[in-house]
């Protein structure tokens, strides 16, 4: 049980760190002259946080959620929390680490183009905004799902 709880805690905290660093990345990219070193650091933190959140979330989901939490939610007062919110969350969350990876590669591969305000800077900013907003919504979805376990 301790490993399961640890995986749940790491899943949530690592996901939040990913969302916060995606926000820092976005603000950094919106500066007129971005600091490339900061962008590199934030992009690495974003990517690895989401990977960690992904792996620990999968561990918790496969070994515990499906057997112990899902039946409780489906039998409770808010079955939509699993049928709609969780189903959406687990699919959408799958591609966030990939997008975070693309951002990281873009920043490491094209620092001069970012400094030169080329279109790639805008594209990376859009991707960071996408990761930030989606990550934040997924965090809120997690709260709704956890709360439904008692509804």
């Amino acid at each position, binding site marked *: 049980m301790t490993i399961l709880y640890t995986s749940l805690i790491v899943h*949530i905290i690592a996901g939040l760190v990913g969302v916060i660093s995606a926000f820092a990345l976005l603000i950094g990219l919106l500066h007129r002259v971005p600091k490339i070193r900061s962008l590199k650091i934030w992009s690495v933190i974003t990517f690895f946080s989401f990977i960690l959140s992904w792996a620990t979330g999968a561990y918790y989901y496969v070994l515990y959620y499906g057997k112990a939490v899902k039946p409780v939610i489906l039998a409770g007062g808010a079955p939509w929390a699993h049928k709609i919110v969780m189903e959406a969350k687990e699919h959408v969350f799958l591609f966030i680490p990939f997008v975070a990876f693309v951002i990281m590669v873009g920043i490491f591969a094209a620092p001069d183009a970012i400094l030169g305000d080329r279109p790639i800077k805008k594209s990376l900013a859009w991707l960071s905004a996408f990761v930030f907003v989606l990550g934040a919504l997924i965090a809120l979805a997690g709260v709704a799902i956890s709360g439904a376990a008692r509804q």
Partner: protein
Amino acid sequence: MSVYSLLIVAHIIGTILGVGGATFAEIFHVRAMRDGTITEEEGATLKICYTVLRIGLALLVLSGFSFLIYYRLTGQEELLYSEKLWAKMTIVFIIPINAILFQIRKIPTWLATAVSLTSWYTALILGIYHDVSHSYLEIIGLYIVAIFVVAFILHRINIHYALLREKKPETNKT
């Protein structure tokens, strides 16, 4: 010290840094704009305020979600469906969205500063008062009204300084 006490301390520190950062950012901004321009030194001071504010936001979010984990692990999941909690989370989510819109100049300064200041104070008030009996929509409605009240007050302060700025050359002449 228990985990719960540590979370409370972290949450309070995050709120203090956020509310303090937002308040001083506004004070320094109004002060800097008294002569109509922001100097390099004033810009650097504002930057420090924004950094403090963002550290506060990160601490607030991390400790806030840690509370939710605590509720989940101690069998208090019903608290996660509190309307006050969802109103607070919505308002805290608006803070970074507002910062992004301000950064890309998609929101006027008067509205962005009012949203930032009101959001932080609303989060503080919601955190202090445990017995908030209002619904989600009522809290958000009051919050929107408060944004425009704060915007009006800030507008009056700016007009006051603009009038002083206009009077100043006349005083110098005499």
